[in-house]
Structures are given as structure tokens and as C-alpha cells.
């Protein structure tokens, strides 16, 4: 291409763009962004590729629930369009995608973006633009705690620290002389759990005799478990994602470590417990303590449960081929239920302010995906939607509930 020709093309392009700019009249904006008479457009990001992609089932579960709601007529006659994009768990990529969703796709709200780092980056931008950042999929405390700075943001699941506080209460009440060893994932999630446990034990935090961390790039956790056992501890806390939690349960059994085990709720699905039992024998899982707040699709207790029947029906229709036992789908549906609930509360004349108000005035006793008794509720002073959890103990085949629902703080 000759230089002159190139120049002509470049200048033409400039002129065309300039002309375009003059002609583009800013759209009249009396209507609410992302909402028409028949549609509500919302956005979000989940890691559909990359190292954290196992969580993508959460996005798919939410998507499936919206499809179900739409087929039943939508919310106040409006269908929900959920533009859920792949951020590969990469914060800068998520920010670019969300800017695109807000500015180009004109979404009404951002729903259930996943990951603490990702939401940390999105939060200042969305709050500046006054776009609701609803029911983020992370258990850090900051989503509920820092509302004064970031009023447009709210979490959903019980936060990790709160879960640890429940364990700490239980330990102090029943095993006050326990010697505790902790295995945790070396990221914000694992560290939050550890912090919660330390805070919960308070003055008795020295009960923790040893901690060991692992990286998600580690092939296994055998060596960590061996050194935790050598500390002489008699209580073993596992703050790990399913893959490593299974390895830890199996390793403890193979080392014949006679210990009481606490397992974080992230990894207490039947899939994990069965895999650990198969590999490590019944000793690996019998007596393990955890908390639950979501219904477990494989738990025989819920064989006739209408919520799980709905879950399975939605899975069969909208996620054919999806693994029904993968609890992340259920999580996504649970959060989507709360979102739809907030939309309904916000009423026919939907605005961002109204939906945000609805989100901080929740009183949801009928979420079909959380365990019976758990109320998803918020108030302007309490932005932790789920804060009740139920201690449970594994008997080798299923979880048996211990005591009644517990609330960690407040």
C-alpha cells in the first residue's frame, strides 16, 4: 500500500468517525437503563475458563433459573436476560467486560459476579456509576461490612469468617481443651476462614497449635497433613476446596490420624464425602463436622423435598448433561431466586434505587434451595443475607444435623 493511499484511508476514517460523532445524538434517558416493558437485561462474570473454572456451574445454575422464571412468564411481565461473561478469574478482564456490560449493553444491574479479587475491582466502578452489584458470589465480609462506602454492593452467601465463628463456638463449648491443626488454601478465601477461627477462639486462639497452607498449584497435600499430624493436634480443620479437601480427608485416614475433623462448607457435598470414603475408607469421613445452608441434592433426607424436585426439574430441562450432584448449580439457583425476589419486591416501576432498597429489605422464608428454617434476610443495618447455618456431622453415609440453626454474629 502506498503511503499516500494509506494516508487517504486514514483521513477518510477520521472524517467518517467525526461525522458519526456529530450524528450520534445522546439517547434520551427517561427510561430506566436495562429495563423495557418486556425485558430486564442484567450482566455478570464467572470464570468459564482458566484455573477457577469449576465455579462456572454457579453461573450456569443462575442462568437456568432465569430461563425457568422466563418460561413461567418472567417478573411482572418482563423476561430476564442474563449476560454472563467469562472473566477467567482475571480482575482486569472482568472490569473491562463489566464496563462493556454497563456502557454498551446497558445492563440494569450486575448480578453474582464471582471471586473476591474480581468483585474488589468492580466495586468502586459500579458504585460510582450507581449500578447495583447484587449478591456477589464470594464469602468475604467486606460486602456486608463496608456498605457505608459502597452502598450499591451486597453479598449473598454466609461469609467465611462467620462460618468459622460457628466452629469456634462449638469447639469452645464442647472441646475446650482441643489442640487444633489447620489446613487452609493460601488465598483470600482460606485466610478468611483462618481469621474467623482465630477471632472466634479469641483469648484461646493458642489452641491452634499448627497451621499449614497449600497453593492451588500443589499436586497434593500429603506432606502438609503429615506435619499437622506430627504437631500432636487432636482436632483438624480443613479449609480447602473440594479437590484438596478430599485429599486431606484421605491423607488423614491413611496416616491413621485419630482426630476430630472440621470441614468447611465449600467442600461438604456428597461428591466429596463419597470420593473420600471410597479412597480412604469409612474412617476418612465418619464423624466429620461441617455446617450446611444449602440443600444437598444427594441427601436422602430431601428425597421428597419440593425445592430439590424443582432443582432437578430445572436441571433436566435447562442444563441437560449438567451434573445434578454438583452443588454449585444449586448455589447459582439459590442466588438467582433471591435476585428474582428482590425484583418482585421492587415492583412494576423498576428502578435501580428500588431494587437496591429491596435487596436491603429482604425477608425470604421460601427460598427452595436453602435448608428449611434459613431465612434470607437483610435490613439497612445488616447486609448479610444468609447468616444462619446448621452444624452437621457425617455418619459415613449422610449428614446428621446437630442442634439447631446457629447465627454467628450480631
Amino acid at each position, binding site marked *: 500500500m502506498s503511503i499516500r493511499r494509506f494516508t487517504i484511508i486514514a483521513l477518510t476514517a477520521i472524517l467518517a468517525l467525526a461525522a458519526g460523532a456529530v450524528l450520534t445524538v445522546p439517547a434520551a434517558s427517561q427510561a430506566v437503563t436495562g429495563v423495557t416493558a418486556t425485558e430486564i437485561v442484567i450482566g455478570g462474570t464467572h470464570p468459564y475458563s482458566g484455573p477457577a*473454572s469449576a465455579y462456572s456451574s454457579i453461573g450456569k445454575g443462575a442462568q437456568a433459573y432465569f430461563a425457568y422464571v422466563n418460561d413461567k412468564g418472567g417478573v411482572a411481565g418482563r423476561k430476564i436476560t442474563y449476560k454472563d461473561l467469562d472473566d477467567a478469574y482475571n480482575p482486569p478482564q472482568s472490569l473491562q467486560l463489566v464496563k462493556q456490560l454497563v456502557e454498551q449493553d446497558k445492563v440494569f444491574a450486575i448480578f453474582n459476579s464471582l471471586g473476591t479479587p474480581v468483585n474488589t475491582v468492580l466495586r468502586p466502578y459500579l458504585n460510582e456509576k450507581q449500578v447495583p452489584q447484587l449478591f456477589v458470589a464470594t464469602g468475604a465480609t467486606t460486602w456486608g461490612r463496608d456498605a457505608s462506602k459502597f452502598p450499591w454492593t451486597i453479598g449473598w452467601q454466609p461469609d467465611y469468617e462467620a462460618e468459622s465463628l460457628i466452629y469456634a463456638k462449638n469447639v469452645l463449648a464442647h472441646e475446650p481443651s482441643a489442640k487444633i491443626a489447620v489446613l487452609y488454601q493460601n488465598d483470600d478465601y482460606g485466610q478468611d476462614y483462618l481469621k474467623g477461627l482465630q477471632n472466634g477462639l479469641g483469648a484461646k486462639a493458642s489452641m491452634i497449635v499448627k497451621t*499449614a497452607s*497449600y*497453593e492451588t498449584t500443589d*499436586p497434593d497435600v500429603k*506432606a*502438609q497433613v503429615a506435619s499437622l499430624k506430627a504437631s500432636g493436634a487432636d482436632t483438624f480443620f480443613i479449609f480447602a476446596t473440594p479437590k484438596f479437601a478430599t485429599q486431606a480427608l484421605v491423607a488423614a485416614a491413611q496416616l491413621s490420624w485419630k482426630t476430630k475433623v472440621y470441614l468447611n462448607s465449600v467442600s461438604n457435598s456428597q461428591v466429596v464425602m463419597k470420593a473420600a470414603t471410597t479412597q*480412604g475408607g469409612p474412617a476418612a469421613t465418619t464423624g466429620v463436622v461441617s455446617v450446611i445452608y444449602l440443600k444437598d441434592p444427594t441427601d436422602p433426607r430431601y428425597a421428597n423435598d419440593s425445592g430439590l424436585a424443582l432443582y432437578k426439574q430445572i436441571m433436566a430441562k435447562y442444563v441437560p448433561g449438567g451434573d445434578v450432584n454438583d452443588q454449585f448449580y444449586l448455589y447459582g439457583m439459590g442466588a438467582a431466586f433471591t435476585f428474582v425476589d428482590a425484583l418482585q419486591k421492587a415492583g412494576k416501576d423498576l428502578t435501580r434505587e428500588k431494587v437496591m432498597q429491596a435487596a436491603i429489605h429482604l425477608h425470604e422464608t421460601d427460598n427452595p434451595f436453602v435448608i428449611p428454617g434459613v431465612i434470607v434476610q437483610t435490613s439497612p443495618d445488616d447486609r448479610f443475607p444468609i447468616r444462619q447455618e446448621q452444624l452437621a456431622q457425617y455418619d459415613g453415609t449422610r449428614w446428621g444435623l446437630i442442634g439447631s440453626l446457629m447465627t454467628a454474629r450480631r
Partner: protein
Amino acid sequence: MQELAQQVVSGLATGSIFASMALALVLIYRSMNVINFAQGEMAMLSTFVAWELNQRGLPIWAAFALTIVIAFVGAVALERIVIRPVEGAAPLTIVIVTLGLFTAFNGIAGWIWGYVLKTFPSPFPTTPVRVGDVAFSLQDIGIIVVSLGTLLAIYLLFQKTKLGLALRASALYPEQSRLAGIRVSWMLALGWGLASVVGAISGFMVAPVVFLEPNMMQGIIVYAFAAAVLGGIESPVGAVVGGLSLGVVLALLGAYVDFIGTDLRLPVAFAIIVIVLMVRPAGLFGRQKAVRV
């Protein structure tokens, strides 16, 4: 003392995983002086094939056998189609091609099978075994035995068969081998096939421990690189010894050196690679040789 013994055993168990993967890397290096960055992803892909066959009703051992054939044929075809055009090109070029394979295979596995963790049947029972106060499982022993068995098979192939002689000759003296009537180019393809089979076996061993998913080898491959470099990148014995000792070193550092702990393992692997390459590039078991210019 008991903890020390336990840590050594745990380290050996983990190290045997590094060893089996390092062995595959060494095979490629011996046949064409390159490092196949896609080796781990090829192993992962083979493991998925075995899983799929098993899901479709084939007994697990039959699935393994069939997968090994597929892995061999697939890798030979891959060498013919993708590596052949850049044979003899600068090392950088081949590095980039194998990185391309790495990325593509990871995506293909994700596309076909998704990213959700899958349990993979263990070829060995996970029954715990105790010797004195030290505990381990039959599975750990199984992986070590299989690594050693693979090593032995490679040794026999290279040292005791005509094919092995041809493989060695064409890697060391391509020109002369060609004159002697050895089809050097096909020997390279065979080298890829063999490495792929070793990788697949390694995948079968690893998957029950780390669970099957497209990224399952990415945590392991860097350690396998370090193991191969430590043992000597041209030495199969070195790969196995390097892998086992790396496993033990990491376990002991994690247990007894607080500064390193369990969270700085990758930097340790990086340090080992750099230090070995600078101080003794041939590794523990390789022969030192003059630098080619």
C-alpha cells in the same frame, strides 16, 4: 524422627508423580533436543480419553490399554503433521510450537469435557499400609513401582533392542545414521509416540490423586521440569531420581524450614532449575559435555 520418616515417605509419594512426568520430558529431549511444553497437556488429554472409554462401559484396564495405543498413534501423527515442518528450526521455534500445542490441548479438553472435577478410578487400592509408625498407601507404592517399571522398560528398549539402538543413533548422529539407512525422521516420530505413552501412564497414576480436569497437569509440569533438570535432562534414571528427590526436598522444606514452608514451593522449583543449569547443566546424572556453539 517418626515425623521425619513420614515426611520422607510423603515426599516420595508426591515425587513419584513428578518422576513419571519428567521421564516423558526426557524421552523427547533425548530424541530431538527440545523440551515439549505440551507434554503435560498430552498426558491430560490421554487420561480424558481413558476416562471417556471407561464411562462408555470399557473396563478400566482395557481402557488403559486402548488409550495407550491411541496416545502412541496420536503423538506419532502429531509429530508428522505439526513438528515435522519445524524440524531442525531454531529451538525457539519448536518451543513456540509446543506452547501452541499446550494452549490448544488445554482448550480442546475444556471444550469437550468441561472444567468440572471428575473422579478417576484408581488402578491401585488406596488401602493404608503401616510400617512401624510410618503410614502410606498401596497407591503410593503402585505409582513408584510403575515409574520404576516404565524406567526399566525404557532401559531395555534403548539398550537391548535394535530399535533402541536406531533411536539413540539418530538422536546423537543424525547424519551418520541416515547414511547407515536409519530413517531418522521416523525415529523422531517414534520418540514422540513413546513419550506420549509414558505421559499417558503418568496421567493414569496422577488423575486418581489430583482429580481429572483440563488443568490437572499445570500444577505438576513445572515440578516435572525441575525434576528433569535436576536429574539431568538427558537421563531417564536422572528423571526418576530427580523427581523423587524433589518430592522429598519439598516435603522437608515444608515441614522444617519455616521461611519456605509450603507456600514457596514453586519459587524453590524455579531456583533449582536456575541453579542446576548454571552450576551443573548436565544435572546429577547426565554426562557433562562441551558446549555446542
